[in-house]
């Protein structure tokens, strides 16, 4: 029943990314010319929505900043509403290399998993993580690997491809803040299968990371708390794919 080319949507959440967004959109178009692109403008005060429109992307402009989780969810709602087969999330800051989107797509269709995550840490590719962040990621990866009984190396990666089933699940239930690590656990609990492939990540082209040193502590506590308390929660299973 699979179509020859799955209808693919690239979702780019962007909060004040005018410095990098144009370049990212060009690279996405070049890498996956068959895909539609939607930029979720999370209440930017700069030219982010203007650039997105000029580059021919769909633009979902949130009336004010909701945070990355709710912004991503808005993109998933869009994908679900319009019946895309696959949704790929790519950061607007240039951290992810759009040239690797086809790898995500290929893995998604060939392995039959529901979500493919691009990981920086499967093999060394010259990406240097500051050590405090690396420690945090290693701790999160250990907790999540333990919980899901599956090796997860880069739970904070927001470079992912999801099939219809995963899109429907995320449109319905996605963490509002710092969503990536928690969502991996949610996927596992919902009975969605996920896998990782190695990717190369760049230093961001411009803009600011949403995670400043001061917020890292809060990040860790919030995410670990969300994962552990989430385990006590009744979890809906994802609907079987149609």
């Amino acid at each position, binding site marked *: 029943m699979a179509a020859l080319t799955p209808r693919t949507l690239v979702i780019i959440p962007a909060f004040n990314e005018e410095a990098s967004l144009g370049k990212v959109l060009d690279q996405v178009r070049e890498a996956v010319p068959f895909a539609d692109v939607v930029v979720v403008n999370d209440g930017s005060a700069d030219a982010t929505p203007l650039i997105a429109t000029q580059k021919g992307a*769909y633009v979902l*402009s949130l*009336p004010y900043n909701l945070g990355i989780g709710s912004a991503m969810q808005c993109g998933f709602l*869009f994908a679900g509403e319009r019946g895309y087969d696959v949704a790929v999330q790519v950061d607007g800051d240039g951290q992810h290399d759009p040239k690797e989107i086809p790898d995500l797509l290929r893995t998604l269709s060939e392995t039959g998993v529901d979500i493919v995550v691009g990981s920086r840490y499967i093999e060394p590719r010259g990406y240097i993580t500051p050590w405090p962040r690396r420690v945090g990621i290693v701790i999160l990866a250990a907790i999540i690997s333990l919980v899901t009984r599956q090796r997860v190396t880069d739970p904070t990666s927001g470079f992912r491809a999801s099939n219809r089933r995963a899109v429907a699940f995320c449109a319905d239930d996605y963490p509002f803040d710092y969503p990536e690590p928690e969502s991996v656990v949610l996927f596992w609990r919902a009975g969605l299968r996920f896998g990782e492939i190695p990717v190369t990540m760049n230093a961001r082209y411009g803009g600011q990371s949403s995670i400043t040193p001061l917020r890292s502590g809060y990040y860790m506590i919030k995410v670990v708390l969300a994962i552990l308390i989430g385990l006590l929660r009744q979890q809906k299973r994802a609907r079987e794919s149609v």
Partner: protein
Amino acid sequence: MMSHVEMIMVGGPVALLLLVLEMVRRRRLREDYALLWLVTAVVLVVLAVARDTILVPVANLMGIFYHPTALFVIGTGFMLLILLQFSAVITKLTQENHKAAQHIALLSQRVSELERGRGAK
């Protein structure tokens, strides 16, 4: 003759009760959010008025020798409940607010497509 502390024990909750009722009457406070406030005020009034029959035995049960302190502790307990209710309500409002904002973004994209379509033809 009532002592000062007893006047406060009775007068405070009575004033609170009247204020809450008046705010509900003027629709400045929704009935569902007023409920915990009303319970709090009524409990405190009853305890303060029925000092010898209820408050003092309750204070003794709690191991509190100075019975106005028991009133204080019970009042604090209700305040914590009310604060927790606030946090729950804020959580719900935030979720609904995010849903509404996402909906606005989806609709306005749809509207701009419709407008462009009409302009082109």
